[in-house]
């Protein structure tokens, strides 16, 4: 899988014990009442932040300090209007800004890349020359003996703390950004901000199959819709669309791979077609069904799933002037292509169809011709 962000609330809940600290923060939404906040914190000064994995919150005005519980709803109401939904409340930690340090740990091939600066805080980017890999001895011991084993056991790949402050024996991270290795970590990852309905549906589908089904809606009014297979080929084909100056017409990025069943491919295709047909554009549109020469994904089997979904929508697709452009190779290539060609011809949906002997990216040029 990949590195994914988690919320600061989850990060501190998971890691504060390693620092020998009690985490007193509270995760809230717009629905959280003042009395709930007051009950948790009493009448102390509080800091409130948007907690959705966004960087440079301080500079973007997404952190407010020295608020009383009663002042919080008005603040988050403003943020909610901008589309934010999850927030973190903590007691203000009084300290001198000159005591703010910077510390980050990034998992690399041979271990960890560790960056430290005595001059941390919001201006770290302009103080980047102060970053060093040399750590104070006490901090280094803490990292090697306690923090890094903790990061390993939780499959954390990235931890940035800016600032950290030291008080007595304690090292206190006031801000934390964490990315986990989603292949193994049990910490819950942040969802992408505001998934569309079709993206959500495909994410659910993806969670229920060992195969990989990915979909990102880029431009719902776009005229180029892609049903691609393979992590590499899908990237190459999307690049080609941008390279031919069709980027503004690109409706989505996505890929299916890992030998999905024909039911998986059917459900995946149907969601994408439904999204396509909602498009307000009255101009002609193209669907690119393409991929490289598969090593072990059965072309005929996956194409059967796609055909089933296309056939349910073939009339609507015709009335929106949709044509389908195909390029695919691999096991059962000929049978798959024959099935697809016959179907597309019958339904008057055929743009063009090719196997392995035609270069991968040719379909994109043909789509360009059809659309212009």
């Amino acid at each position, binding site marked *: 899988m990949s590195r994914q962000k988690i919320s600061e609330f989850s990060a501190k809940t998971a890691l504060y014990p390693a620092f020998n600290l009690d985490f007193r923060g509270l995760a809230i939404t717009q629905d959280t009442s003042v009395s709930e906040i007051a009950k948790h914190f009493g009448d102390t000064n509080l800091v409130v932040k948007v907690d959705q994995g966004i960087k440079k919150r301080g500079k973007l005005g997404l952190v407010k300090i020295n608020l009383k519980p009663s002042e919080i709803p008005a603040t988050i109401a403003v943020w909610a209007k901008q589309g934010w939904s999850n927030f973190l409340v903590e007691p203000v930690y009084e300290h001198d800004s000159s005591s703010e340090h910077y510390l980050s740990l990034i998992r690399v*091939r041979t271990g960890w890349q560790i960056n430290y600066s005595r001059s941390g805080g919001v201006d770290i980017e302009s103080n980047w020359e102060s970053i060093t890999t040399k750590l104070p001895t006490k901090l280094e011991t803490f990292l090697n003996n306690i923090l890094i084993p903790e990061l390993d056991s939780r499959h954390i790949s990235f931890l940035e703390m800016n600032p950290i402050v030291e008080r007595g024996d304690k090292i206190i991270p006031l801000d934390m950004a964490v990315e986990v290795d989603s292949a193994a970590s049990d910490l819950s990852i942040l969802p992408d901000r505001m998934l569309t309905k079709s993206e959500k549906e495909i994410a659910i589908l993806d969670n229920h199959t060992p195969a990989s089904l990915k979909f990102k809606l880029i431009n719902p009014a776009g005229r180029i819709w892609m049903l691609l297979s393979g992590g*590499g080929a899908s990237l190459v084909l999307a*690049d080609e669309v941008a390279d031919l100056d069709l*980027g503004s017409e690109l409706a989505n990025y996505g*890929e299916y791979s890992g030998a999905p069943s024909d039911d998986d491919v059917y459900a995946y295709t149907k969601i994408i077609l439904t999204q396509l047909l909602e498009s307000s554009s009255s101009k002609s549109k193209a669907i690119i069904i393409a991929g490289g*020469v598969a090593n072990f994904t059965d072309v005929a089997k996956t194409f059967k799933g796609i055909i089933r979904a296309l056939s349910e929508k073939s009339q609507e697709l015709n009335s929106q002037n949709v044509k389908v452009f195909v390029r695919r190779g691999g096991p059962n290539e000929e049978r798959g292509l024959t099935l697809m060609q016959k179907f597309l011809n019958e339904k008057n949906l055929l743009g063009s169809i090719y196997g392995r002997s035609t270069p991968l990216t040719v379909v994109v040029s043909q789509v360009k011709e059809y659309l212009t």
Partner: protein
Amino acid sequence: MIKISEIRKSDNKIVVLGNHESIIQSILDFDYLSGKKEGSISSIVTGRRGFAKYFWGRKEILVPTLASLSPLPFSLGPDHKLWLLNLLSGRRTNSATQEFFLNHPAAAGAALFAENVPELHAQDLIKQLDSKLVVGPSSIGLLIPGYLKLGPIGGITPDQINDSHLTEAGSIAILSASGGMTNELINIAMTCGHRLSFALSFGGDRFPILSPRDAFIQAEQDPKTKIVLYYGELGGDDEYELVKLKSEGLFTKQVIAHVAGTVSSLFPESPQFGHAKAKADSSKSTALAKRDALRSAGFQVSNSFSEFITLVSKLKSHYG
């Protein structure tokens, strides 16, 4: 680490971990079509002692199945090289691979097929197995035409093996981050009349056990390889290691390289693409920055995939 030229001189024997009939059969088909006397699949670890039926040409054969990774039901001679094809899931890949090499310390290497191998496990494998040739995780394997097919690389049907001339040796090496694109590059090279010296996919994970740098060193040291076709993606900094290799004079052969992922500039922030590594966390790890770095180091780099195909088609045919 074993060199590609040594593999060509050895009698290669594969232990398969996990069951994936079509992949195993494709390896036997490759061996048969290569004119070998017997198949390279020595045994399949299924958890049960017995035999599994496969085809050797048109003849049915029985391949031993094992309850565990050791002992093996055969003894290895001095010409034998032992390989692991690990088809287990991501969570089990590390422990099973470590166990294999612990039991068979003389084994030459492995191909790790699973996606979702934790980064921590990949780091562990890198530390423990730096003297072995281990491709993956999320690799479709290693192919040396006529000698070794370790994984589904090149396809799983006899038609694919024949159509792509996978049993005939040539002088083009294919090194790729993506399984599907490995096969696509094989297809392009074949269409242009070339044959392969070897091909491998190091996989799209963040920490491939055999790094692109290691793979380039293999290509440099292989006397049969004249040209490298390279496919990389946005994310990570492996290409900067290739730049270093070139500037240190440790790599001298001709390369045609493509780095995919310029489409990420259509998004406000680089999205996560298909492979685990395929996300630009910094300006240095974008496809464009890596293309520029490779180009300045003296590699031939395409501006689009269509251009990559054109560059390959302009190569003089080194085959035959």
